[in-house]
């Protein structure tokens, strides 16, 4: 079930995990949060002085924990501002609104064995997988790839994850092919991290003959900025500008338009919107090659314009 009501919550605490990593803990204003699924994310609405962000973050708390949620966020240099706001302005006690958890990255129930491959902060969905896999007695390995500086941070986050965990720094790390070679039938691989890394994991698995159904990617963090462009809404005749650091979806929301969305990372397809005119730069993981070439649909959360103007069927 997808609930669409926002849940009022407060910042219960902020833990600094490293120079650019913080854990934010939220508690509900009243009652309890909904039960999440492993790999679920929440949309956090952040109200800054000048703009509002709705950003998706994976829950790092166990799925059945309902008295509090936690997320871990990296402060990224060229972000659209959400992570800066979280890191620099959010304080314990501040109020936030949280969307109900949704999972687009479930554990495959038929899998016999699970290989989880995280890259950097892409570890976060797996932090909610691990307690579930352990409770099920499932066979799993978790491989976390990160910089040498951060191996300590991630080892600590994974201290209770059990024996199947390996944290790979930059030196002497095992290749994805080594990790995936010689796995028994029924093994599934899950990966979350930078796009290039996820593609490399997928390529290694394919190369070893793994079927598509056994390869799972979490495709978050796709909403990068880009060239500014102008949007005309065909039905209302309104025009708005999408600046460099804002996504089209955010620009629509800023203009007070209730645009549909769920993952905000180009993975779910809920935000797909008709395009009447203009050239699209597709960045989603939903549309087929044919649909892309057709140029009549776009994911507003991540995709942008190649032309100066886009005309949307809105």
């Amino acid at each position, binding site marked *: 079930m997808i609930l669409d009501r926002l849940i009022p919550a407060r910042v219960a605490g902020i833990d600094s995990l490293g120079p650019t990593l913080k854990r934010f803990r939220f508690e509900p204003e009243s009652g309890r949060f909904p039960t999440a699924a492993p790999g679920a994310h929440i949309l956090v609405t952040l109200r800054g002085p000048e703009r509002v962000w709705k950003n998706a973050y994976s829950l790092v708390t166990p799925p059945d924990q309902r008295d509090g949620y936690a997320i871990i966020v990296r402060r990224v240099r060229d972000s659209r501002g959400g992570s800066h706001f979280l890191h620099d302005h959010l304080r314990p006690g501040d109020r936030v609104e949280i969307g109900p958890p949704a999972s687009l990255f479930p554990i495959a129930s038929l899998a016999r064995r699970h290989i989880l491959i995280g890259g950097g902060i892409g570890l976060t969905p797996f932090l909610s997988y691990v307690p579930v896999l352990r409770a099920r007695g499932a066979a799993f390995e978790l491989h976390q790839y990160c910089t040498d500086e951060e191996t300590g941070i991630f080892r600590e986050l994974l201290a209770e994850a059990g024996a199947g965990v390996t944290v790979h720094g930059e030196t002497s790390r095992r290749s994805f092919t080594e990790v995936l070679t010689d796995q*028994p*039938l029924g*093994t599934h691989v899950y990966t979350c991290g930078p796009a290039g890394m996820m593609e490399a994991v997928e390529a290694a698995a394919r190369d070893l003959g*793994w*079927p*598509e159904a056994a390869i799972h990617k979490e495709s978050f963090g796709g909403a990068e900025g880009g060239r500014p462009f102008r949007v005309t809404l065909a039905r209302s005749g309104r025009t708005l500008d999408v600046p460099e650091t804002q996504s089209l979806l955010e620009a629509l929301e800023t203009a007070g338009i209730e645009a549909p969305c769920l993952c905000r990372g180009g993975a779910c397809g809920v935000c797909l919107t008709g395009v009447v005119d203009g050239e699209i730069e597709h960045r989603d993981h939903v549309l087929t090659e044919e649909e892309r070439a057709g140029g009549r649909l776009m994911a507003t959360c991540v995709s942008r314009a190649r032309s100066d103007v886009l005309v949307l069927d809105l």
Partner: protein
Amino acid sequence: MIDQGIKSRPTYEALRRDPTGRRHLYLCAGEGPAPDALSDGPLESWTVAPAAAEGTLRRPQGEGERRFRSSRQLLDTLGRRLAGERMGLRLYAEGPEDFLWDVFGIAQDHGLGRSEVFLKQSGTLARRVQCVHCKTFNEGVTTTIVRCAGCGANLFVRDHFSRRLSAFQGVKIDAEQPGDVPQAERAYP
């Protein structure tokens, strides 16, 4: 009587090599050989020749060719083989429907998913029929009505096929009016 309009029956397509696989194993309930569309690359081939054919067939020559004395022996060997297999294998099975789904069941028990197993019906259309009353499996049924080897009931052979049991469903035909058993027709040669 033959088409009972049951839409859940499996349908089968000609076997083609799945190029995304790294190792390929062809299983045939008969003597083979593997279709050409499978053979453009390394292929293991397991076939069955009954004991009566001994001495009349050439010996398997190619690498990865094995011949079994019964499909039962082939299936038992398959289970042991899959227990040690690794990701990247594709299975292709050809034969009567009960053999195909026995293969599929063994494959599933060892972790292979739907996209890693390919099935093609060939040979006899005779059915394995499970009596819904006493659960006995009746092998090689070619008629629309069969007397259950377990409980003696006269079973109507439905088109309802269980992939899990690799069997069609047989239901007592004269339950309403005992003794009212129509003439059986030979329908599944």
